[in-house]
């Protein structure tokens, strides 16, 4: 291969060489990190909730006035919702996955508290909760209707029975036999684990205890409630449209907020991951435009070099170089420059990631991304230089004899 003469020629075009290499290096650094952000965000967006998310409608409800207790209102509403055509099941709760607001507390193994607690989200519900959510019970049993109690704002939620997620059970009892064990959510008030569900996530999307959930057989006697409905397949839209009227038909003294009052679970999910999808979109656009601009820059500079060296190319051709020799000369030249750029770029990419790591709590850049970035940029360089190189290879040997 004719690497030595290429290097000698490049020495005469220091500025252009450095500029292309620099551009490739910077592009690699940004593209790697941007693609990594895309990956990180899409990973979050793809997280499952442990629910069967199809055919679920969530209603935010606020009772107006101060009747002393809201339990009768809640029960009448539930009855009305469960008898709606198209509704399979329904329950009332304080929160649900991806709602981005709810309760959490520390679950402990000992009655007197202590420092060994595990953070858990709390969902209240009755014996219909699991079926409505579509959460899968992997051990133990569901609540029975006689176990459902209620509590008010002035009281603490600490029922005798709870259902927990497998993740929480495993963290509380690493030996794996959590079923039937006692845990404490409030000092001195024991709860027995009667069931374990495979998976259910917390309402928030940015916590470090995303799979730690406790379901309590409680109705929260308060003006603010969420009704969750499971509809029959194909009936989701009909229920979505009619549920507000059904509730207002039961009792007008309530508010279903204009914004987010009634939502399908697709809407809940979309709202929860809005920022993540937006960021992934932005970074993808940036990557695309950046690669296009870098490619265009390489085409521009290479064309200039080809134009500048027509005479030399003619001489080489006249001296016996084949078209393919000229083509491979320019391709190799670009490859060498891109290689230098890529080496610098990898260092920049890792440095940039290291910095973002400390500033924005990002994860460490996986090496696959760097590798993909390297291959993409080397390929991009070769693709971009191909047209100018082809033009160079078509320079006729006669050019050698012409003076400009």
């Amino acid at each position, binding site marked *: 291969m004719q690497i030595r003469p290429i290097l000698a020629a490049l020495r005469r075009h220091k500025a252009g060489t450095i500029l292309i290499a620099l*551009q490739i290096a910077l592009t690699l*650094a940004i593209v790697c990190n941007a693609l990594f952000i895309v990956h990180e965000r899409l990973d979050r967006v793809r997280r499952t909730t442990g629910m069967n998310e199809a055919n679920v409608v969530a209603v935010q409800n606020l009772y107006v006035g*101060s009747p002393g207790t809201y339990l009768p209102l809640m029960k009448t509403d539930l009855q009305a919702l469960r008898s709606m055509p198209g509704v399979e099941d329904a329950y009332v709760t304080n929160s649900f996955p991806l709602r981005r607001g709810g309760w959490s507390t520390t679950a402990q193994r000992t009655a007197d508290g202590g420092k060994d607690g595990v953070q858990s989200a709390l969902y209240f519900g009755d014996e219909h909760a699991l079926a409505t959510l579509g959460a899968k019970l992997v051990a133990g049993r569901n609540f029975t209707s006689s176990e459902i109690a209620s509590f008010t704002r*002035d009281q603490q939620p600490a029922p005798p029975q709870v259902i927990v997620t497998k993740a929480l059970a495993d963290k509380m009892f690493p030996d794996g036999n959590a079923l039937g064990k006692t845990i404490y959510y409030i000092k001195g008030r024991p709860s027995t684990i009667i069931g374990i569900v495979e998976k259910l996530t917390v309402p928030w999307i940015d916590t470090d205890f995303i799979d730690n959930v406790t379901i309590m057989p409680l109705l929260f006697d308060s003006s603010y409630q969420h009704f969750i409905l499971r509809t029959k397949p194909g009936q989701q839209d009909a229920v979505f449209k009619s549920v507000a009227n059904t509730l207002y038909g039961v009792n007008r003294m309530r508010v279903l907020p204009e914004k987010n009052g009634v939502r399908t679970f697709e809407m809940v999910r979309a709202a929860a991951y809005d920022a993540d999808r937006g960021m992934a979109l932005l*970074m993808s656009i940036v990557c695309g*435009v950046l690669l296009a601009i870098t490619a265009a820059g390489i085409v521009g500079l290479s064309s*200039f*070099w080809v134009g500048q060296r027509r005479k030399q190319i003619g001489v080489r051709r006249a001296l016996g170089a084949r078209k393919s020799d000229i083509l491979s000369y320019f391709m190799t030249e670009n490859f060498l420059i891109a290689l230098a750029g890529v080496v610098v770029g990898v260092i920049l990419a890792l440095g940039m990631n290291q910095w973002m790591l400390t*500033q*924005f709590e990002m994860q460490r850049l996986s090496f696959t991304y760097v590798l993909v970035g390297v291959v993409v940029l080397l390929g991009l360089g070769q693709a971009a230089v191909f047209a100018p190189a082809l033009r160079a290879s078509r320079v006729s040997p006669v050019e050698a004899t012409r003076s400009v």
Partner: protein
Amino acid sequence: MFSYYLQLGLRSLRRNPVLTALMVMAIGFGVAASMTTYSVFRATSRDPIPQKSDVLYNVQLDNWGPENTKEGEPPPALSYKDATALLRARKAKRQTVTYPIGVSVIPEDPSRLPMRQGAYATGADFFPMFDVPFLQGRAWSIDDDEKHADVAVISKSLNDKLFNGGQSVGKQINLDGHLFRITGVIKDWAPQPLFFDVPNTSGFDEGASVYVPFNRAVDLKLPNNGNNNCVKDPGEGWENYLRSECIWLSLWTELPSKSEAQSYREYLSGYAAEMQRSGRFSWAPNVRLRNVMDWLSVQKVVPRESQVSLLVSLGFLVICLVNTIGLLLAKFMRRAPEIGVRRALGASRLDIYAQFLIEAGTIGIAGGVLGLVLTGFGVLGVGLVFPERIARLATLDPTLMLLTLVVAITASIVAAFYPTWRAAQVQPAWQLKSN
């Protein structure tokens, strides 16, 4: 000479349309990406109350101790005990406590449905302190605060809904069955970031449409609609909650001079020291008194997404610049013979500098115009990337338009420095000889 060089520049741009288009697009895209993300950054990092931001102070007091706080930073809100004690002392020119309440407004007309409204329980000082603009009537008085009066201030949009925009001062409003007398109607007021309630809104939210006196809200046990954080179980009932170390209240003070701020800070430390002596705190006084901008920065209201995207797009602009340097170099050096002739005919290096920098400037103008159009689309599309409550704040105003052009032209001239220097170095003799 300038207009002549401008003409030359424009002609040169036409001579090589592909290269020109590449440069204009690089500048345009780079500037547009930076300006679009900057518009979001600017909106999220701006001063919500510029005329008073350095005399309004948020009060923090560590009632949790080093075990329950991170890096010595006191909790972001106050307990009822501390907030009311500091309020009663009246050590600042103005002071007010706030917490968000969830209330439903019940219209008098029974055929209309109740409405959920954002609301705050606060003090009389809230309105003059934060320069809240009144359309009708006025704020309730400090006397009303002390008498635990049933008074309220409502926003224009709620006044439109309830009273068709008419005079409503003196009329009554029904909040969850409790009647309040309206003392004033304010404009729809929601400074962004919503500095006085960052812990509950993360800084960006629609404002409230009802304000009622804090003392009355506590009497009525109107529940806190914001965050409530306890490190210890408060026990059951409202009275226990008020006695607890749970934090849920924001306290703001207005301290017009540095010396007043200093003496308030001393007072605050004194109060915490008092608590330590009385045995309530087992740690040294740990207090903060931060003005609006410091408070916003400590609370990190600028979303991480906004910072990352601004940085990435600035990187993008740098790459576009490097790209432009390369292309300009190619373009200028291709004209070495022409430069040789000009130099041989007596043009000085300075003339060459002027000619080529002006040429680069024309590219900057074209890139700036393209960038302006793209920024326009970008700002429209901000909603695809950022949540609506933030996206609506990003606007393309005259300042941003001017900035777009200035950045584009400056960037292209900066990019042209090296290629121009190279062009000016062209040796006339060498060029003429080789031809």
